[in-house]
């Protein structure tokens, strides 16, 4: 078993370390492929068939097809890679960040305009809850 890390108790935070990089390698390879406009067109034409080109597992496939943004991180997606899928759907990075908090987009934008989220949970207690288990 991979050893626990000192940042595992930070609430609502998925640090993209070696554990997640291994878990998400094929998923991120798919996401990286969306840098190519021809691949974006193929993906949009038939998402499921395009995903067959990559060794993603069933959980990852579901999370992609269902646009489960937080789950994409939990199954090994890196947020910068994940944004390439969000951009395919015309989302901004703020849209993607907001989606992961579970807040409506307007509420998230309002929170940012008001100075953002306070660093509660910085010492490892309380806050927004764990993103993964």
């Amino acid at each position: 078993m991979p050893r626990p890390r000192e940042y595992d108790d930070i609430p609502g935070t998925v640090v993209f370390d070696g554990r997640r990089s291994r878990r998400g390698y094929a998923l991120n390879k798919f996401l990286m492929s969306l840098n190519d406009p021809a691949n974006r067109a193929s993906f949009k034409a038939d998402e499921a068939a395009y995903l067959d080109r990559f060794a993603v597992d069933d959980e990852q496939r579901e999370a992609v097809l269902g646009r489960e943004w937080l789950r994409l991180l939990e199954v090994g997606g890196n947020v910068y890679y994940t944004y390439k899928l969000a951009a395919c759907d015309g989302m901004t990075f703020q849209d993607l960040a907001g989606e992961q908090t579970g807040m409506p987009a307007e509420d998230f934008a309002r929170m940012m305009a008001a100075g953002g989220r306070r660093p509660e949970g910085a010492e490892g207690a309380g806050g927004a809850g764990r993103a993964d288990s």
Partner: protein
Amino acid sequence: MARIVGGVGCSHVPAVGAAIDKGKTGDPYWAPYFAKVEPARSWMADVAPDVCIVVYNDHASAFSLELVPTFALGLADEFPPADEGYGPRPVPAVQGHPDFAWHVAESLILDEFDITLVNEMPVDHGLTVPLSVLFGQPEAWPCRVVPVCVNVVQYPPPTGHRCYRLGQAIRRAVESFGGDERIVVLGTGGMSHQLQGQRAGLINVEFDTAFLDGLVRDPEAVARIPHIEYLRQAGSEGIELVMWLVMRGALGDAVDEVYRATHVPTSNTHNGLLVLAA
């Protein structure tokens, strides 16, 4: 002798690039931020460097998980803007400086910084947004650029201390180059922000202010901030601030703070702009 004349710390928020590209800098959301940019632009115009060494991170553009260099240096004649998944930014290609870049690379490696050599790569918003912030929308960028990429996407990034030491080694490399180039070093990314998880949207003005104060006056102490403190206090993406330490290390011990501006929010980020004269 080539000489480092100053350094700039500059966040590299994609939405700032998009605001410039789409002519939205006068919109109510953006106008207050872009008003704060003007003094930094004036300083850059006055200094008119021949070369900018831009310390930035690639965001799954040139590098993917197949190959993740912790430090890499761009040696090409030209670096095109990257397609990051939504088409390349409409900005000029970046002109490199291979003679100088090769000198820096050789000097760094013999100085025991085993940097990765890159002969071809596109450059993404991490590099081009700070150029847009500092130079606006010219037909061609007004200086040559040496890209220095730092991995901050795959945890762990290099330590702040290692980044600071890299900056010091870059300074030694510059000072042993035979040309007469005047050089500005850009440290990009940060300040506090978190783009992922339920804690997305984190901003920590207190941490960022202390970081900026320390970076100017006591960089050795700031270089000792451990990763766990960035993660907790500045957010999972706030750890990009280690790249500002490369810039600071390249400036030598004493600097003059020429200008500082911060703005919250730009998209999800506490935006920082810090101009230092060496």
